[in-house]
Each structure stands twice: as structure tokens, then as C-alpha cells.
């Protein structure tokens, strides 16, 4: 039985990749194992926990609910793209560090990508807005409070 393979060209963190993938390969697995970008984590594979969130053309999506073949000719951003060229923290990463917004760190990449996109769209969020934006990302360690503080602080800093 031959597998249903497709050639895809996808841009991830600004780098163009050409690969041949089986049609059923999930985008999350493609990023993590085919491209070795293991910063994106898998928590549930049914679209609830948000750990696998990446940016698709700048919008946060669940990579476990997309097929790698669907990323053909699209731009994906993962957590590996957040820090600057010389490893300088993105304001969100700095804020998460300053506010102890992570413990085990497993849900963190998904939260960073979700919040990075959120702050691009909503520059001066209220705490309620931050919590609503965060509600699609599950964290079992932190109780969210420090993450909320980190996002509010990063928003402040990013507004300049």
C-alpha cells in the first residue's frame, strides 16, 4: 500500500523548506520532527490545550489541527522565531521571566505565540481582555496570574 505523499514548500521562521510528506502528517509533528523545531509542544491533539499554537500568516492556530500539506506556500512562525538575532528576548519572553510566568514551561511556547499575536492586535488590553485571550491556552502549573501580569507588563513595554 503506497502512502499518499505530497511535495510541499513552506516558510517557517523565514526559512524556506521543501519536503515530501505523507498527507496525514500533522503540522505539529512536521514542525517538531521533520524540521527539528521542537519548541512547539503537543498536549492533546484535539485542539483544546493550545500548547501547539503557532502563527499561520501571523494568526495563532492549533498546529495539531492542521496537516503539514495545508502549510504549502504559507508562512509559519514558531516560538524559535521570537527572540532577536543575538538571542535577545522578545518583550513577552522577558516579561514572562520577570514575572515568573512559567513553571514547567510546557504550555509556554503556545502561550507566547498566542499572546504575541494578541498584543499586535490589542495594544492596551485590560486584564479581562488578557484573560479572555488566554482562555484558549491551558496551564496546569501557574494558575495564570503571573502570566497575566507578564502580558500586561509586556504590553506596556511594547507600547513604548
Amino acid at each position, binding site marked *: 500500500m503506497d502512502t499518499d505523499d505530497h511535495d510541499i514548500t513552506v516558510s517557517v521562521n523565514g526559512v524556506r523548506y521543501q519536503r515530501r510528506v505523507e498527507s496525514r502528517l500533522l503540522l505539529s509533528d512536521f514542525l517538531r520532527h521533520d524540521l527539528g523545531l521542537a519548541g512547539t509542544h503537543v498536549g492533546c491533539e484535539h485542539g483544546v490545550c493550545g500548547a501547539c499554537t503557532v502563527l499561520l500568516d501571523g494568526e495563532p492556530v492549533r498546529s495539531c489541527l492542521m496537516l503539514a500539506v495545508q502549510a504549502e506556500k504559507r508562512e509559519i512562525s514558531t516560538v524559535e522565531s521570537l527572540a532577536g538575532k543575538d538571542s535577545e528576548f522578545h518583550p513577552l519572553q522577558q516579561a514572562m*521571566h520577570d514575572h515568573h510566568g512559567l513553571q514547567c514551561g510546557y504550555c509556554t511556547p503556545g502561550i507566547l505565540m498566542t499572546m504575541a499575536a494578541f498584543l499586535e492586535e490589542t495594544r492596551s488590553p485590560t486584564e479581562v481582555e488578557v484573560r479572555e485571550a488566554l482562555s484558549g491556552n491551558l496551564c*496546569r502549573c501557574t494558575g495564570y496570574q503571573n502570566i497575566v501580569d507578564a502580558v500586561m507588563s509586556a504590553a506596556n513595554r511594547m507600547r513604548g
Partner: protein
Amino acid sequence: MSTRTFGEPIKRNEDRRLLTGQALFIDDVELPGMLHAAFLRSQVAHARILKIDVSRALQRPGVVAAYAADDLGDYWKPGPLLVPPPPIAGIVFNQRTQVPLARDKVRHVGEPLAIVIAESRYIAEDALDDIDIELDQLPAVVDLEKGLRAGSALVHDDLGSNVSAHVRQTKGNYAAAAAKADHILKRRFRYEHGISSPIETRGVVAQWDGRANQMTIWDTTQAPVFVRNGLAGILGLNERQVRVIAPFVGGGFGPKIMMFYPEEVLLPWVSMKLNRPIKWIEDRLEHFFATTHERGQIHDAEMALTRDGKILGVKDVFLHDGGAYDPYGLTVPINSQCTLLGPYVVPNYDSTFTQVFTNLTLVTPYRGAGRQHGVFVMERLLDLAAHELNIDRTEIRRRNLIPPGAFPYKQEIIYQDFQPLEYDSGNYEPVLDMALEAIGYQAFKAEQAAARLEGRHLGIGVACYVEGTGIGPYEGAKVHVQSNGKVSVATGIGTQGQGHFTSLAQIAADHLGVAVTDVDVVTGDTDQFYWGAGTFASRGAVVAGNAVNEASKVVRNKALKLASDLFECAEEDLVLEDGKVSIVGIPEKFVMLGDLARQANPMRGAVQPGTEPGLESTQYFGPRMGATANGVHAMIVELDPRTFDLKILKYVVVHDCGTVINPMILAGQIHGGVAQGIGNAFYEKLAFDDQGQLLNASLADYLLPTALEVPRVELGHTVTKSPINPMGTKGAGEAGAIPVGALFAQAIEDALDLKARGVELLEIPLSPSRLFELSRNAP
């Protein structure tokens, strides 16, 4: 530098790797030639196995191997008893432990029947459908009371009953106390805790290298040393041939310290058989069945009191759902039994429990580890007594608190560490006072009345608890100054987000006068540190921390002695800070710590017996008993009186865990514990049908609290040092999770005025629907 970091909110050393996606978690382990495993798991809770035939699976392209129980030969055996029954008179304990693959009988949904090894997880899952299974389904044991009745199906046929254990512990004479009581109340309570559901599930990667004769196992375990020892034994290898690495682990919470899970036992065996690395990553669906749970208890409890609310005694008979096997002994129900006593004087206590085998996943400790259940019973009894005796609910608690002069306070019954339960230290009343002040208890009655006039239903809850922490046996640490001046610390425990890379570094940094960022901590690698128990029961920072403390002191003394020989001066004239040793008052006369380390490892000359080369020390710390922390939670809620929707308006935790190493990390632990407690109290429920099928096995239907359900938590602290260890610390990992169920029941009753209407909340979890059902017939 010279700023002491101990006790400071030092930011974490481990953050960078985690924030940039560079930390190694189990599924990030990629090895050449690695194969992938998937398990065929039982879809029914109880059945005889008539046939398992893997031959068709082997035909599928990409499948390399498939095994059922019979293929394991002598390797197939029930797992070891991890925690033997405690030395309690009259105890009944029937040991039945889990097996690597089911044989003859399946005893819970999700029990593994076969393992398939393939080129990818995708193919391995495809091959599961190729396996021919014939099961003869049997009635499932799910209900605890029915499971104990004659004629019930038996989880373990040879046992003749479903009794896993029966334990009675007493203190004083409850019957005599009750005979003299002014007031007795009796109730039945049901408390269900849920599953840990960390965002990262479990996983194992086993790599047997036949040429090097070496087995390396990556495992999301909280107990790498025990796992190494046990697996070496099971595999017939020497301990030094096996290396267990617990990488970054995405949340542990207890079930990752269950050991010799079938997957842990099988993967190394398969790797040796095939001489290839094998990876298994638990998917979320598997996690609901394959990783241990906590579940429910039914308590028939009574309390005898004087008319002014002093507890004369408590009697409690309870059933505990242990699941299909009992490798973890009685840790959870013993915790329930002991923690029920709480911070109160209970002169007479008679507690009996029966641990029941059921056709459900095994029950082992999950954050709180049975303490929740005990605390719920005690706190509810006090609330009900307060109502019946017309005493304020915080006042009745105050009247029964163990006074500060009574420590160490002996509770007499046996605790999970097999020692008679003894509270090392505590000062409970100030904690209660702080919590009442912070929540605004005095002013609340008026606020509640004013809100009610506006049609808003507010309620307040206050709950007290103790937490047994920091138990033995021991942990160890090796502290070593490198020739570059940086310090390396290694210990045998694992880390699942508790910040050990920072808290342990702080301890070493202070003694050795270096920056916290110059201390590199290694945990969870059995090749880096040989001995230890693991991270559980709120003991990591306490026990390993004290070991780091001892080892750091020894290294500091070595450094000072070396420097004093070098400078030919007295040790008292030296100061160690900023990474160097200098003479007091003559700062230009100094030697860098790294240089001292090099000098301590001579290229020539002698090292005498009784000394060691290098600036290094390995020390162990084994407390003779645990240290008892305590706390009070207080909460104000608003209930929609028609939909029973609940909103938390204010949440306060006041906590005493002795000396605090890093208040920022401590706060994080409490926030996280409270979030899990809120999940336990009002959102998370395992819904089983009467045949042991889990009806909500997905995160869409097993409801973890989100950022919209967990409020801001206001924290307060008092510090009552523990006399048990030199640092005076007590553990805190579970504190946030323990009293939340009791708190919700009390606050909701208050908001909806339920007691006055004859409705009592005697169960957890609750939900809007459940509140509707419980209150619908009330006037």
C-alpha cells in the same frame, strides 16, 4: 555582590531554555534508528482474555514487531510493591500489582494488551486494528459499596473479595468521649479528586546499546533513581549499566512518580530485543486511562463536641477507591486518615478505612494525595457543628486550634512515612487572623446583606488545613566548584517546574559567595547523582535543599581552609564573596574560587586518605520525620441564584512553610495548587458509567480551569521554622490544592443560604447542575 539570595525572589536560571523552545522534553529525544511504540489497550473494564493474535499486525509494512504477554516469557511478572503497608496493628493488605501486559484477564479500561513497534507512531496506531482480540466481558466493579457486597464480581478472583486493604487507627477512646458529649453530628461525605492532567503526558525512550552494554532510558519520571534501580533488576542488568534521565518534564503532580508502569517496563525490554532505540509518547486519550488517577472516597463520619464547640472526638469509617491494582500501598488513604485531624486538638479519634479494588485505573498520589478528602470531612463537620451550635464558623475553628506551646504535637497515629504522626512546629492562630483580615471577614456580613438587597448572592468560606511535608527517607547532593569558578550541584530528585534549578542554586550560591546564575544544577540524571528517592509529597526543596545546604557548607569550609593555608592566616580573617576568597581589610590579597579548586586538585604531590581532591562534597540529608506546614484559605463567591453559575470575587491564602527559599517560586506553587483545587472543587469530574467506561475522556469534556476560571490569589505568610532541618524549611507544593473543596462547599452554602433551607453540601465536585439538583426540593 554579597547580597544574600536565600529568601529572595530570584528569577529562574531555567527560564531561558524554556522560553526559547530549547529545553529538552521527552518527545524531543531523537535517536538514529529510533522506532515508535503504540499500545493496544482494553476498551472494556473487566474481561477474560480469550485470544490475542498479533500476527496480522506483523504483516503491515512499517511494523517491526508486536508482542503480547505470552511473548515476554519470564520477563512477564507483576510489578514490585512500591510502598509496603505501614506497621499498624491489625492491618489487612492484599498485594496485587500491575503487570506489563494483561494476561488471562483485563482489569480496567486502558490496561495494555499488546505493544506494536513500527517506523512511526502513525503506522503503529494503524497496526493496532490488525490485532485480533477476543474478550469475554465481565461485569465491572465500579461502585465501592456494591463492590464489597457478597456476589459482586471480583477484580482479583483468587482473593475472594474486593478488599485491597483494611486499616483502623485509634487515638484515645472515641466511644467514651461521645458518651459524654453535649452534641454529636453524623454525616455521609463523598469526595472525589480527579486526574493530574499535566499539559505534557508521560513518555519513555529506551536505548539499548548492545556494544557498549549500556541502557539509557529517558523517562518523565519523578523518581529516576528508584526507576534505575528497579529496571536494572527487572532487566537483569547491573545498576551502573542503566542510566535514567528525567529531562525537562511538563508537569508531574504525583502520577509521574508511580513507577514500573507497563510502558516503563516494556520499552527497555523491546529495545534490548531489537537492539534499536524505542520511543513511546502517551497521547492525551491514553493519559485518561494509562496514567494513575486519584478518585473518590465515601466517609461516614461523626464528631462529638461540647456545647461550646470543643471537639471531643471524631469517628470516621470510609471506603477508598484504589483501582485495579495497589502497588502504591496505602499512601493516599493514610494521608486522608491523618490529615483529617488538621490543625485541631482532637483528643479521641477512631478512623477505619477499606481500600477497595475496582475495575478502574490505579489510584496513586496526585497533588494533595488524599489530604483533600480528610480536610473536607473535618472542615465540613466543623461548619455543620457551628451551624447547629450557633457558633461562628471561624470561632469554632479558633477554639480547637492546637496552641503554639504544644509543639512538637503528637497525634499518635501512623503517617505515610511509617512514623507516628507528629507535628514538628506550628503557630496556627496568627494564620487564621491574617486570613480573616485579608478577606475582610468582619465587614463581610454587612456587605453580604447589602448585596442581597440588590439581588446578588455573595458567600464567604474559610478553611484551615495542615500539610505533612518534607518526609524522608533522604536526598543527597554533590556540590563541586569547577576550575572556572562556577559551581555545579547535582542531586537525585527530578524537576517538573518547581524551580529547583534556581532554589537549590540559591542555597549553594550563598554559601560559596557566587552568583546564582553561576550555579549549574543537574537533577534527574542517575549518572550525575546515584542516590535518592524523588520529587513527591512536597519534599524536593526541603530534603534535597538541606542536602545542598550541608554539602555547600563543607565545600565552603574546604575553600576557607585551603585559602588560609595559602595566605598563612586564620580562617576568621577571610571573606568569601564575589567568587573569591580575600583577607578582611586587604582586598588586593585574594584568590579566585576557581583557582582554589584547581589547587585542590594537584598535578603533583599527595592527597591523603581521609581527604578528597577538589573543592567538592557529597552530603545526604534524611529527616527523621516530616515537617508540618499549615495554612488557611478564604474566598468570597457570587452565585447566580437561578443558573447556579459561580464567580470567585476574592481568594486569599495565608500559609506557613517555615523558612522560604524563594518567595516568587513559592507563590507560583500556591497559585498553581489553588487552580488545581478550583478544578477539583467545581469543574473536574471523571464520569464513569456502571461498566467502568469513562464518558468524558477528552480535554473538551474533562474541564481544566482556564484563565477565566482562576482568580487572582492574594497571599500572606507567617514563618514558623521547622526544628527538624537546619534550614528550618517546610514544603509547600501541595498547599494550594488541599482545602479548596471544603472552601467551595462552605462558601456556596453561605451564598445560597442552603443550610437554613435544609440543604447541606456534603460532596465534591460540585457544579451548577449539581447545585440545582441538590437544592431543587428545598423550600
